[in-house]
């Protein structure tokens, strides 16, 4: 699993072997393939880009082309053990609704996102007075797919308001885990494990 992005590696490590998993926005299927090969999971995916779906099929994966904003409704209740939404929440039209959908389809959900309150992002905005373009957020405001920037504190507020339980949370700076203390300053990425 060495090729996995740090947040995906973390998710893969924390999924119980043999689980049923739905990875929403699965890209070329890197996480799905890792879960299938190393964790013996029944791992399925949803992906918007048909050519990435084709890549997944070529890897022997089962992936449905679909739009996470529109097509999650078509998955039955409780059909998987884990629904995974990695680095996608901030691109969605209706992030709050998406969280509800994840926890309808999955008994648990992994959600990872870039933390807009990471200190470099804060400094960049403070110094330059412009929407930050950083290593983590490399695209200008008018071209970024990230239409709903959020911070770790924002996310905690949302899950609390929706009555969602945080089972576990991990915070990443680069490839390293950082502690929960002041994570909203120190973490570039957050990974949450949620349940109802």
């Amino acid at each position: 699993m060495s090729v996995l992005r740090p947040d995906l590696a973390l998710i893969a490590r924390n999924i119980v072997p043999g689980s049923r998993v739905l990875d929403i926005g699965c890209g070329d299927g890197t996480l799905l393939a890792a879960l299938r090969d190393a964790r013996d999971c029944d791992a399925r995916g949803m992906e918007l880009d048909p050519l990435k779906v084709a890549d997944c099929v070529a890897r022997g994966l089962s992936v449905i082309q679909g739009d996470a904003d529109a097509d999650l409704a078509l998955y039955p209740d409780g059909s998987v053990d884990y629904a995974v939404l990695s680095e996608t929440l901030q691109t969605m039209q209706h992030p709050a609704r998406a969280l509800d959908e994840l926890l309808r389809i999955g008994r648990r959900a992994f959600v990872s996102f870039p933390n807009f309150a990471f200190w470099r992002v804060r400094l960049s905005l403070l110094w330059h007075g412009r929407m930050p373009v950083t290593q983590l957020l490399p695209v200008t405001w008018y071209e970024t797919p990230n239409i709903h920037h959020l911070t770790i504190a924002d996310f905690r507020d949302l899950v609390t308001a929706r009555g969602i339980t945080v089972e576990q949370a991990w915070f990443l700076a680069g490839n390293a885990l950082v502690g929960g203390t002041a994570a909203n300053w120190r973490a570039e990425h957050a990974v949450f494990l949620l349940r109802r």
Partner: protein
Amino acid sequence: MPASAELMLALPLPLDCGQRLENVRIAYETYGRLAGDAGNAVLVCHATTGDQYLASTHPLTGKPGWWDRMVGPGKPIDTDRFFVICANVLGGCMGSTGPASPASDGQPWAMRFPVITIRDMVRAHLALLDALGIARLHAVIGGSMGGMQALSLAANWPDRAARVMAIGATAAMPAQNIAFQEVGRQAIMADPDWQKGSYYGTGRAPDAGLSVARMAAHITYLSEASMHEKFGRRLQDRAAKTFGFDADFQVESYLRHQGVSFISRFDANSYLYITRAMSYFDLAEEHGGRLAEAFARSTAARYCLVSFDSDWLYPTPESRKIAHALNAVGAPVSFMELSAPFGHDSFLLDVPALDRVVAGFLA
């Protein structure tokens, strides 16, 4: 090397209409070599007016096989690895039993031939697989009506295929498609040379009607954009309009050519029967009205559904519906809408992404 063969079924073939068809012949082509455990067989199902000449030269037209680009050594359906079978459908006119075949009285069946269904076509395929000693296919693949056969096989005989791929297909013929095909059938039946179907041996055949049917159908296989690109309003071998009803426009000339060349290789009654089978096709109806129910026992196979964005005959929602039904019963299913400009015919043409998907799905 391709091999042409014919099988005469030892047993009568039971049909959905309740009849049993005796002495059924199945004409088929094979490519590659069947493995000792018969585990490398791939059944390719042809579309409405296709035939078994999948990747071998057509005996009547001299043209390459209809999926020559997809099937062969080193190609996505690799005949160095797979034993590939393509059979002319029941009701067809390229050697399999159909309305032009002799009935028990030695005369052609003509309209006495029973109305067949997509499932009946699959029954004939399965009888062929039985005869070849193939219990479980590595994959069944088809586009358009071929995709319907693949889905019917998966739904009704869940243990006969490990992989199921349907391209530009549907689980139930939409009203618009029934409508277009009815136009085609009416064109044939309105031709006085059709003679209520008993035209065999009369020296006359409903060529004009069949040709019009083909022209109308051919329009539905293309896209507005591809027609515009290919023909626009360009005139055919002339500088100005003739103020007559000759084929002034290239698109008219093209369609007429399609119609005329079709009659040299297709039987009008076969066209009636095969399109009828398609319009009757409704997988959900066969299974209590719920499509998911059709696949409830079929979750061991892997599925791959592909649609094309320019295909308005079997548009993406048709494939998506199937994907969702399979998803609902927990079957491993992939679905994608590929971008290609050629309309419904995209599955036959140069779409590299499709090649990749087919190769990957079979691997």
